Each structure stands twice: as C-alpha cells, then as structure tokens.
C-alpha cells in the first residue's frame, strides 16, 4: 500500500507546505514496509503544479485530476475527488498540510471514511503513532491511531524539513474518474494579498508586530525592516484584534505556526497563544518596552526599549 499526499496549490503554483507533508510521508515510509508516495493534484489547468509535485524527492507518482469544476477547490468537490482516488488505489495513509487548505478539507474526508483524523502532527514515532501539540503547544500528545481503514493526518510544516526538489521527475497520471458534484457550493471570489508578499510559513526570517506598535501606520516601520531582511511580516492576535493588520498575518495557536531561522517580535508581550506559533524558531529576538514581558523568557536576545524608536535604528544598521 502506498501513502497519498494531497497537494496544496492555487492552480498555478505548488505551495511549499506540500513538500513538508511529503517529508512526513517519507518518515512514515521509513518506518513501514511500504514507502511509495503518491501526490494527488486536484484543480483546473494545474499541469504546472503536477510537474512541480513530480519533482519532489521521494514522490513515486503524481495523479492529476484536472477539470473546470475542480478549479475552485471547495471542500465538497475536493472530498469527492479524494474519495474517488481512495477507491481507485489502496492507501495506508492520507496526508495534507495543516494550513487553512488542509484543515478545511481533510476532516470532511476523514468523517466520510469513519476515521478519526490526527491533526497537526510534528513527529512520527511509528506508522500509526504521532506527536502533536495541544493546549497552544503547552503540551505534546503522543497519539496512536487504533482503528480505521486508513490513517488521516494533517502535517505542521514546522515539524518536518521540506523534501527537496530534484532534477528528475516522477510520472504524472490523469485521474481515471473526475468528481462533478460541488454540492451546490459556488465560489464567489477571492481577495488575496499580492503574490510578491513573502509567505509567513515559508520565510527564513519573520518580523512580527504587536499592540506595542500602537497603530496600523506604524506597521510600515516593520515592513521597512522586513524589506531589508527579506522577511515575512507577522502579527500577534492583539494587533489583528486592534485592526492594525489582516487576520492572515496572525502568528499563534489559532493563526499560523512558524519556525524560521530568525524571528523578531516587536511590541509583542508574548501571550501563550502567540508563543505557540513561534516558539520553535531557531533564533528569537524580542523588542519590548516592558522588561517583564513574557516574550523575554523565550527570546535568545532581548532588547528593552520603545519599538517605534528602535525599529528605524535597526533597519538603518542592517
């Protein structure tokens, strides 16, 4: 039996989180007798995505389900197509990134299969035993799947280094049967940030701002620092709640979980919900005017002072 990874993409490019999910599948494969990994790409005019997926190290085959009805990638139609693939071939595991994409669709598939999904794994102990954070990362649960025809997992990218791209390609097959029924759901539209914005979960450096930045305009100071460092910009929930930045900037328990090489927290006090989203970063810098802020307890380098004064100085010195 093989392992199936559901590719995340926007019909044009493959999202890098897919490579981390393939890495998790490889780790399961190393511990099992079966290590063949298939990637399923569902969309419309998504051939470039399938070609990118075929180049991920460890992938034996890509299945492409390409049809106009599949283009919107709603949970309903993705579920229908994945179920067709699970009927066409036998799989031991189904994996997808623990992003809003995977979180939306995978539980729907798991329920159709009468399977209890294991969400947001960060480690593989055996083909059926996984580690996942609970309580905003304040505890780690070791969970074993004990019943079900297939194991369904979402994968936190921070737990697995991306499986690299190689020169050679795995074969790409077309799905034999295509799902048609979208359950009456219609995609009205998407408003996405410009594509040149560096994605938080894939960035080497992240600079995040909190309520200490005081107002939305002051995020420009953070943007300037980010531009210097080629960094993605994040925020605490407090900054999102205050309306300084959109919700998809949010780093934390209920936002994005990141683990960059360098994380700079500016004007963020360090609530446990925020720490949950960044505590696995390699190097953490905290800048805050309150010397007792909890963020300093996880920071490798702490600087006490007014963020609005420090930010321009820091940007100038880089």
């Amino acid at each position, binding site marked *: 039996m093989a392992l199936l990874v559901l590719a995340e993409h926007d019909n044009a490019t493959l999202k890098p989180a897919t490579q981390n999910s393939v890495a998790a599948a490889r780790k399961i494969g190393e511990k099992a007798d079966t290590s063949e990994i298939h990637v399923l790409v569902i969309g419309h005019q998504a051939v470039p995505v399938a070609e990118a997926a075929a180049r991920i190290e460890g992938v034996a085959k890509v299945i492409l389900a390409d049809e106009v009805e599949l283009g919107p990638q709603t949970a309903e139609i993705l579920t229908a197509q994945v179920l067709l693939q699970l009927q066409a071939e036998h799989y031991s595991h189904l994996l997808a990134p623990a992003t809003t994409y995977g979180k939306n669709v995978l*539980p729907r598939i798991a*329920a159709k299969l009468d399977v209890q999904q294991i969400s947001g794994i960060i480690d593989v102990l055996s083909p059926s035993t996984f580690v996942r954070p609970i*309580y905003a990362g304040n505890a780690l649960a070791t969970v074993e799947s004990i019943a079900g025809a297939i194991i369904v997992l979402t994968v936190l990218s921070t737990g697995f280094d991306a499986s690299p791209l190689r020169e050679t390609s795995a074969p790409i097959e077309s799905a034999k049967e295509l799902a048609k029924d979208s359950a009456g*759901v219609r995609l009205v539209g998407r408003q996405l940030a410009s594509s040149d914005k560096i994605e938080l979960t894939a960035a080497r450096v992240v600079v995040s701002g909190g309520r200490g930045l005081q107002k939305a305009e002051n995020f420009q100071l953070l943007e300037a620092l980010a531009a210097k460092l080629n960094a993605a910009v994040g925020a605490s929930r407090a900054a999102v709640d205050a309306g300084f930045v959109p919700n998809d900037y949010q780093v934390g328990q209920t936002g994005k979980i990141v683990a960059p090489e360098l994380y700079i927290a500016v004007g963020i006090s360090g609530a446990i919900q925020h720490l949950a989203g960044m505590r696995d970063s390699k190097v953490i810098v905290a800048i805050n005017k309150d010397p007792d802020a909890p963020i300093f307890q996880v920071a490798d380098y702490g600087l006490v002072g007014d963020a609005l004064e420090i930010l321009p100085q820091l940007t100038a010195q880089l």
Partner: protein
Amino acid sequence: MKLLVPIKRVVDFTVKVRVKPDGSGVDLENVKMSMNPFDEIAVEEAIRLKERGLANEIIVVSLGPAACQETLRTALAMGADRAVLVETDAELEPLAVAKLLKQIVAKEEPQLVILGKQAIDDDSNQTGQMLAALLDWPQGTFASKLEIAEGKATVTREIDGGLETLELPLPAVITTDLRLNEPRYTSLPNIIKAKKRPLDTLKISDLQTDIAPRSKTQKVGAPQPRKAGIRVNSVEELVTKLREEAKVI
C-alpha cells in the same frame, strides 16, 4: 429558521496548563473553565441573526460532564433560547462529537449549525467539517463574515493569503473565525432570566451512536523548554550578536 450552536467547555484561555508528572494528561484540578472562545463567537453570531429577524430560535448544545450546564447557562444569558446537554464523562473524539451532533440535528432540524473553528484545548479543528460531511451539507469554515438571504449563506472565509467568499445552499455548517464578531458580555438581569430558560439533559445512550474511540493518547508531555537568552543594551549590540554569534543575518 432554527439555529443550532454546539459549544464546548474548555480550560479558560488565560490559564497556562501544566502537564501531569505521570504523563497521563494535563492537570485540570481547580482550573478555571470557560466557553471555548470560538464557540462564544458562534453564539454571538446566532443571536445577531435572530436580532436581524433571520432566525427565530437558537438552540445551544454541549456534550460533556454535568458542569457543562454552567457553560450552557452562559450561552442562554447571552441570548440563546434553550439548551441541550448530552451528559457524559467519556472523553469524546471530534468524530464522536460530530456523530452525536448529527443525531441532535436530526431531532431539532436546524437550517444552520454554527460552531467554533477549533477548541483551544485539543486544537483539532475538525468537528464542524466532520458534521458537515456526515450530514452531507455544505460547509463554510473559518468565517469572518456571514450573510443569509433567499435560502443561501454567503460566507467570507479567512484563508492563507487573504479571503475567500463562498455561496452555500442551506442547510449548511458554518465554523467561526476570530473576526466574525465580538461577543457581548452577559448582564446580571440576563443571567437571572437565563435560569428560567429550558435546559434538557440527554444521555449518550439516548442517541444510539457508535462513539468507540479510534485513537489512543499514549502520553502527554511537556515541550522542551527554550534555554534562557540574554539582554542586549543597544541596537548596535543586537546587530553584532545576530551577525557574529547567531549568524542569522
């Protein structure tokens, strides 16, 4: 239109939980418990739909020990009309919760189920999607805006990189994200009024559902603590440390 709002009693978001030394779980003795914050947003959204004349009854339901009555009373004090407690001391997986909720939906026949996108204890983010799957209803997850008109729900969803708007035929399942609304506070007169609203208790056995666990938590441990860092005194020192010691810039 009837609305069903499932709510979960969880450790309050301000509590820093501690792992039990024997690895059997987290210590919940004498810890403050509250309604899951995302479920509070779901209750608020239901009340706003009712206030706009788009719904006429809000039923809140919780699954868990008798103490969940307190959480249900909070929802009644916010403005829900009646409550159902499915009382059990068993630990329920999201799939089991979804199956039990499906039975409640069959009984109550709501047109819309609104619930939190995730519970802040197990952070699974599954129940709404699973319930939608079991009912074969469309789903609008991570909603930051919800409009109901002519038998359809228009849902704006928080997705990585921005927003997505979907139109779903009713009945449907909606899960709430942070920016959907700001839940109201409960006032003392409303808390007193809520005590008179109906709260029915069911047993799991009343619902004839397979809730056998499909996963087993072997151990709960504490994450590796980060080693203590240092304070720097100036921007210059910070830049030097990042360049020469950490070598990350």
